[in-house]
Structure formats: structure tokens, C-alpha cells
């Protein structure tokens, strides 16, 4: 399935502020520019922000208000805010503010993946805020947070842990034909336990951390999309994202885990 992709031409925020009434604009915009968010109390998010005050409109998180299974909460992130002509998002950071290790993932976007509509599944230990922070090529920052209530129902009691074999069954679903400039939806799934390093086995021994750390998509020789994954990504990582290719070529998908093992998948892409 491909969505047509149009580059935003709306007035950017920066341009609004450049107009004569900058003072008034600032006054009007301040309620949301200074709105508080869960990122303010989160060190990991503050490090990414590095002193910048993020714009709190444009970035949207798609999460259930209530989830009955914290081990795999579906998460979507989109951007429909205003950017200057030619600007695009380069980094999206996701955090689970209440997890022992809040980092979920960082997505690196570029000219080949400049349609920010990404979905994955995340682990949430308890009721908490999920935070997303995005940066644009020209240095704008955006932030959003949403609370998710986790209720583990007794009726949903799970079975024994069937740990998957790491890096098995890489799956990719992508149209093989796309028109140049259109956004191409890509879905990927791979089996991996994504062992957090925080769990104990039945003998009380701590299970060592074992996760996929890096996922890279190349089109020909060029990197088109990258994801750095952390412990708060669910077992069997799932990623849905978009590419905006202009040339045909071989798509190469590569997953690499923290034991330096890889899995690969390739498919031919024809751009018309």
C-alpha cells in the first residue's frame, strides 16, 4: 500500500516568528510552546533536547489509553507539523518514562525516509507516560507525550514463555513497485527474545541481556532508514515505516544483535 506524499508548504513556525509581530506571536504561541510534558522530568529526554524548548504540536503518538498486555503495546508515531521548505525530520527518539531503562528506540530518517509514519510494539512495565522527541535537519525540536494505563488482567494470564530463536524468520512486506516521490509502506518482523537483562529465570538467576540493537535498511549503496533498538522494544521486533525512493534498486534489510549476529533480507524495488 502506498500513500502519496506531499512536501508541506505551510508557513513554518520560524517564518511566522520572523514576521514583524514577533513579540505578539511569541505571546500567542507561548501557552503551547511552554506546555509541560513528561519529557521535562526525564533525564534521557533532557539529554536529547540539550536545552532546547520543543514545539508541542505536530508530533503525534498513537497509543491505547489502556492496555491489557504491557509486553506488547502497539505504538505509532506521526508528524504533521510545519517545517520550512526542504526541512525534514532526521531523528525520532522514543522513551518509556516509567521503565527501568526508558529508551525504547531511535529512528534515523533521511531524504529516502522523509515521511515520518512509524509503528512498532513496546514493553511498558506499568502505567506511565510515553515520550517522543523529534529533531529536524534544520534544528527544530518537537515533543509529545501520552499516558498509557497498563492493567494486567488475570483473565489474560499468559502461558509458559516460549522463547523464540534469536534472529530467525526475518519477514518483510513491501510493494515491489512504486512511483517516484510516493511514500512506500514497509513492514518488518523478526523473531528474537529481546531479553532485557532485568528478568530472572525460575532458579532466580538473572537472564543476560540479549537484544537486537540495530536495524538498517539500504537501497543500493545508500542507507535509507535506521533504527537503534533498546530493551523496551517488545520481543519479536515489529517495525512499520515508509520510504520515499527515487530510484530502483535492491532493498537490503539487516538486523544486528548485541552478540554481533546478523539477519538479512533483500527484495528488488522498481521505481517508475
Amino acid at each position: 500500500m502506498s500513500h502519496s506524499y506531499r512536501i508541506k508548504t505551510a508557513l513554518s513556525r520560524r517564518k511566522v516568528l520572523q514576521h514583524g509581530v514577533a513579540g505578539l506571536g511569541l505571546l500567542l504561541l507561548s501557552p503551547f510552546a511552554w506546555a509541560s510534558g513528561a519529557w521535562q522530568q526525564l533525564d534521557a529526554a533532557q539529554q536529547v533536547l540539550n536545552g532546547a524548548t520543543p514545539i508541542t504540536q505536530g508530533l503525534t503518538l498513537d497509543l491505547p489509553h489502556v492496555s491489557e498486555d504491557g509486553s506488547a503495546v502497539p505504538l505509532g508515531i506521526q508528524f504533521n507539523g510545519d517545517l520550512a521548505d526542504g526541512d525534514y525530520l532526521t531523528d525520532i527518539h522514543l522513551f518509556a518514562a516509567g521503565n527501568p531503562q526508558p529508551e525504547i528506540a531511535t529512528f534515523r530518517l533521511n531524504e529516502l525516509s522523509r515521511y515520518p509514519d512509524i509503528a512498532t510494539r513496546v514493553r511498558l512495565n506499568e502505567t506511565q507516560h510515553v515520550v517522543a522527541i523529534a529533531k529536524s535537519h534544520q534544528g527544530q525540536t518537537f515533543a509529545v507525550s501520552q499516558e498509557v494505563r497498563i492493567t494486567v488482567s488475570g483473565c489474560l494470564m499468559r502461558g509458559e514463555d516460549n522463547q523464540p530463536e534469536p534472529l530467525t524468520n526475518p519477514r518483510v512486506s513491501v510493494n515491489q513497485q512504486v512511483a517516484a516521490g510516493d511514500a512506500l509502506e514497509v513492514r518488518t518482523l523478526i523473531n528474537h527474545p529481546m531479553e532485557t537483562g532485568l528478568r530472572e529465570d525460575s532458579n532466580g538467576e538473572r537472564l543476560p541481556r540479549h537484544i537486537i540493537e540495530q536495524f538498517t535498511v539500504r537501497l543500493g549503496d545508500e542507507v535509507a532508514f535506521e533504527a537503534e533498538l533498546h530493551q523496551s522494544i517488545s520481543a519479536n521486533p515489529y517495525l512499520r515505516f515508509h520510504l520515499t525512493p527515487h530510484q530502483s534498486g535492491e532493498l537490503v534489510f539487516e538486523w544486528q544483535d548485541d552478540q554481533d549476529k546478523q539477519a538479512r533480507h533483500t527484495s528488488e524495488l522498481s521505481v517508475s
Partner: protein
Amino acid sequence: MSQPWNRLSRRQLLKGLGGASALPLLGAMPSLAIGGQHAGHVVVVGGGFGGATAAKYLKRANPAIKVTLVEPAEVFYTCPFSNLFLGGLRDMRSIAHNYDELRQRYDVDVIHALAEDIDADTHKVRLSTGDTLHYDRLVLSPGVDMRWDALDGYDEATAEKAPHAWKAGHQTTLLKQQLEAMEDGGTFIMVAPDNPYRCPPGPYERAGMVAHYFKEHKPSSKVLILDAKDNFSKQGLFTAGWQHLYGDRIEWVGLSNDGRVTRVDADNLEVETEFGTRHRADVLNVIPPQKAGWIADRAGVTDSSGWVPVKPDTFESQQVNDIYVVGDATVAAPMPKSGFCANAQAKVVAAAIASSLEQQPAPTAYWANTCYSLVGPNYGISVAGVYRVTDGAIAEVAGAGGISPADAPDTVRALEAEYAVGWYNAICQDTWGTQV
């Protein structure tokens, strides 16, 4: 209709409770029926587990409350035990219930019609008969509706070819007929949805019941479950039970093994998963994603999730005053969407409404639930929970409830299968007054 029970005055009832507690209450009953006037009008929409229970317990709380129940069906078929019908263990008559007791014994005005619209500002319900009812308090228990736009190729029309059978009645008999018409050696495919949906263990009970029917009548046939999630209710117990009773007749494919179906081709009984695997069925049972019954949208009580957020103490809508919602339509997690919970929530709502009509605070709420599932005719498993409000949200009481043991002998499973029947008879008696 004046039954002996109704003639008991409230004063007499309260005396039974003991003088000390009755006295302070007696001072605060301005709305008691005097000379034919009622103590407020409550309209209940939906005569399933939640609605029928609410109507009855409102009358039990205060017979002077006028209660009108709006439900289109004259005969209600329960989803609980409809899987047993599919397995050949029961007929449809044994899961049918009517509204005689509510009418005759409890003096509930039962109207067989659809509620078509609700105006919360003027407190009015418009019925399919053209009549309009005015309410002081409204109870909605409309159950679920299918999200017909959620699965490519699956809508109301194609559900006649690939039934969901997730509302009991016509859909259930349709699926049964298809199973009976299927030739031996065929594959029954069930498409199971992601949470939240009505009856978390229901799909897996159904898989066992269909496997039982196959074992008896079509021994070379198979059951394949394609699931949009990686974990399911009582998973370990179900999996062990399936293996024990049916060998490898039942196969389950979860989300992480490409179990999520994204497209249905009902004409060819074919489904396609997210990563492009196609499966062909001989009988196709698609249980689609769900949402609160549509009348909840009309009342303005649903949120963007499609379900109804409620105040945990009373189950009054968080969005609209004087509308109380119970059962599957609500967001009540960690309570599951079960008939047992709908019945328990309805009792809390009845008490809360009876109190509010007398300008009294609602009594403290707590609930219990047990989900029994049959894996085979003499093989029952269960999970139970107790719930109360903690820090403004419903929470499971730690240490209460529990789940059937993993390594129990067949005698324990057989006993639980008997308890399941006992539970069914008791809850139907409590809800519709049906005697077995």
C-alpha cells in the same frame, strides 16, 4: 402487576436489615412511591447479561422505581455455552432465555424495540416504535458491535459466508451448519482478534469444542487459529488440554509468527496475513475487532477508543451525567468483558442509581469474576478474580482469585466442567430467572 413481593413495603424490607442501620436511612426517602407515584424512571437499554440484571436489581433495591427495559429480541441466546452448541453438547433451546420473570415477578416494563437515539440533554430515548421515553437515569448495556471497517474484505454481508458467531443466535447456527456440511479432512480456520474484545478465552474454548466435534464426526479434520496477539487467556492450560484431548488437531499461530490476518476473501474462504501468507479454509470463522454497541456512540459516551470510559465506583459515564453503562461496552480493565462481569457491574449500577435517586452516596463497590472454559466435555478450566477501586481505578485484589492448577488430574478437570454448568445455570437464573 401486583405480586406479593412487590407489596412488601420498603419499611418492612429495611426492618429485616436490623433497626440500627435502618433508622438513619428512613429519614432520607423523599422519593418513595406515594399514592401511585414512582420514585424515578430508569430506562435500561439492552436485555443481555448487564441490562437484564440491572433491571431486576433496580426493582429489588426499590420496587417503587419505575423500570423500563428496551430490548429488540423476545428470546435472548447467550454467548456463554454457545461454543458447547458448536461442539454438539447442547441445543440452542438450552441457551435461550426470555423476559417473563422481569415482567411478571419484578414488574419491569419490557418493550421489544430498538433504542434508536438518545438525547442526553433532554433525557430522552427514541425507540424504533416511534415512541419516546423520558428517563431520570439511563442504563446502557448494548454489548459489542463489530468494527466492519477493520479487516479488509470483511463486512456484514461477508459475515454470512464467514460467520463471526460472536453474537449468539443466527450467526451461531450458521457456523454450526457449515461445520456439519464440511467434509472430513477439511480445515476450520478461526481468525482471532487483538485485545480488547468480548470474552478473552472464548476463541480458545471454541477451538476445543470444534476439535471435539471433529474428533467424534470428522476425525481427519483440523483446527487452525490465526491470532493477532502473542498471548491469550489461560494459554498454558488450553495448550496442554488441546494436546491431551486432541493431539495436534489444533494449531495456533500467534502474532509474531505472522498470525495477524489483514485481508479476508469470504467467497473463496481465504485469508491473508500481514506478511502475505495465504490460508484456505473449508469453514472460516472470522472474529473481527470490536467496539461498544453503536447506541453508546449516539449517547455520546464513547471515547476515541470506541469503548465507554466510566467512573469506577458507579459505572456512570465519565462524559455524560445520568447515563450508566455496564458490560462489554465499557473500559473496565482489568475486569474482562464477560457475562459474569456484566452481571456484577449491573448490580453495582442498580445500587448506585437507587442511592442517587434518594440523594444518597453510592455504596462501596467491589466485583468478582470467574471465567470457566470447556476444553472438552469433561475437561473444564477456570480463572477467577476479585476487583475493587484503588487510587481511582479498578484493580485486581492481589491474592484473591486464581487459576486452575497446571498439572491437575482428569478428575479435577471433570469437576470443573461440572462447576461450569452450575455457574451457567446460576447466572442465568440470577439474570433472567430461567429455571433449569
